[in-house]
């Protein structure tokens, strides 16, 4: 019994899946950057970007429902932008008072909030498509090719590898606990113990999980050292990017730059 549900990768045989991971990574980052740099209230451009990411989703064969469902991940970020409605000065929409403070909601603030929400939602979708259409090892290779520091890439790699081990370990712990969570014949006995006792048990489990992870990291390090690891991460050279893939890269980047330039011209 191993845990795979954490892995967002969905193997398909679409054009998006076959695109070189390096190019996918660059395009996804560029998409997110474009999104971030678009002025707030540039609605037509949001629609254009949405159309763009939607078409990628369709081509990728992942299913729009899958991506849109996962994109609810953006919701908490929207929450962080909520105070903007009340902090940006402008045309007052409504106001209310909390104790001694008078709080105004402004039109400009609302516009900024909606813009940020849309932008983060679009960005998250790009990240989801990237993660779902590229296996994690490929992503690591792509990061390496794009000169992300080697050490960071190998930390990501180890994290990916051992996250599943740790989740497995945690679920085995939970299983062992539920196997011993019985009910007594004794009349009047309160099954389950008190809340604070249960919290203490859970705390103990978290602690022992932490200890084990810590010890495991030691063992892993020893295993690496005994195979010659010296702190330097080495890897095989990467294959060349195919000419057709360069075309995709240039076209994609061109499109995004054009969008951004135009938006900044009109709104900036």
């Amino acid at each position: 019994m191993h845990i795979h549900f954490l892995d967002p990768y969905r193997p398909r045989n679409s054009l998006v899946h076959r695109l070189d991971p390096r190019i996918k990574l660059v395009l996804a980052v560029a998409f997110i950057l474009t999104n971030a740099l678009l002025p707030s209230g540039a609605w037509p451009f949001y629609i254009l970007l949405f159309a763009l990411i939607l078409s990628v989703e369709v081509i990728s064969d992942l299913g729009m429902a899958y991506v849109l469902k996962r994109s609810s991940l953006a919701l908490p970020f929207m929450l962080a932008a909520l105070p903007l409605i009340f902090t940006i000065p402008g045309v007052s929409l409504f106001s209310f008072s909390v104790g001694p403070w008078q709080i105004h909601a402004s039109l400009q603030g609302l516009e900024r909030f909606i813009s940020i929400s849309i932008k983060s939602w679009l960005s998250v979708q790009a990240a989801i498509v990237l993660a779902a259409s590229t296996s994690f090892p490929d992503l690591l290779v792509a990061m390496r090719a794009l000169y992300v520091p080697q050490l960071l890439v190998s930390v990501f790699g180890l994290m990916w590898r051992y996250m599943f081990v740790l989740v497995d370990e945690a679920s085995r712990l939970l299983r062992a606990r539920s196997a011993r969570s019985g009910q007594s014949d004794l009349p009047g006995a309160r099954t389950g113990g008190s809340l604070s006792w249960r919290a203490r048990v859970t705390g103990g489990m978290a602690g022992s999980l932490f200890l084990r992870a810590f010890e495991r990291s030691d063992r892993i390090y020893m295993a690496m050292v005994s195979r010659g690891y010296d702190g330097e991460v080495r890897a095989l050279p990467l294959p060349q990017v195919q000419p057709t893939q360069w075309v995709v890269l240039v076209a994609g980047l061109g499109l995004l730059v054009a969008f951004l330039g135009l938006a900044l011209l009109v709104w900036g």
Partner: protein
Amino acid sequence: MHHSIEIQNLNYTYPDGTVALRDVTLSIAPGEKVALVGPNGAGKSTLILHLNGILSGKGLVRVCSLEVVKENLGRVRSCVGMVFQSPEDQLFSPTVFDDVAFGPLYQGLPHAEVLQRVDGALEEVHMLSYKPRVSHHLSMGEKKRIAIATVLSMNPEVLILDEPTGGLDPRSRRSLIHLLQELPLTMLVSTHDMRLVREIFPRMIILDEGKVVADGPTLVLMDDAQLLEAHGLERP
């Protein structure tokens, strides 16, 4: 007749489509000690996890006269003591005492009774002096004994062990064998240790590819070299 464990036509398929159990039927009488053997991936662990409802497949599973269904899980789990393969998973509390006390505390037993159960269980595994120790620092053999104590404290009727002698040195293994011989419970033990099977368990069930391929007296089955070889086992 009352059986400690009764399984009829149990089938189980993992969510990813792997068929783990096919039409498993067996019953174990109270006080019987039975070994469950078979190659890796035969479905031994999957079968064991059905006995306290952690997994539930299609078919009938009855333990201590209770059907293993959602409503009975609490009762079932206090009647089935399940010791997992890795004591690391079993021992999740900071100290030995906390771990052995978990089951009784969870059941809401009175404080004095909990203390008494803990002492009793540790006594049974001859580890009474380990009560205040930190489980993290124990040796493998000690951890295995404590892991058994953590379920004995629930006064189970059935003891289920997954690979109890794995990773033990000969002395710890020997003392664990003595311990298993002493305990007067119904036992179902999944193992690869054929010498252990011959020594303690009069009855043996061979599971392969999710099916019960043989179920009978250990001495008879052990003599059938062909049968053993066909299912990836060796004569001790």
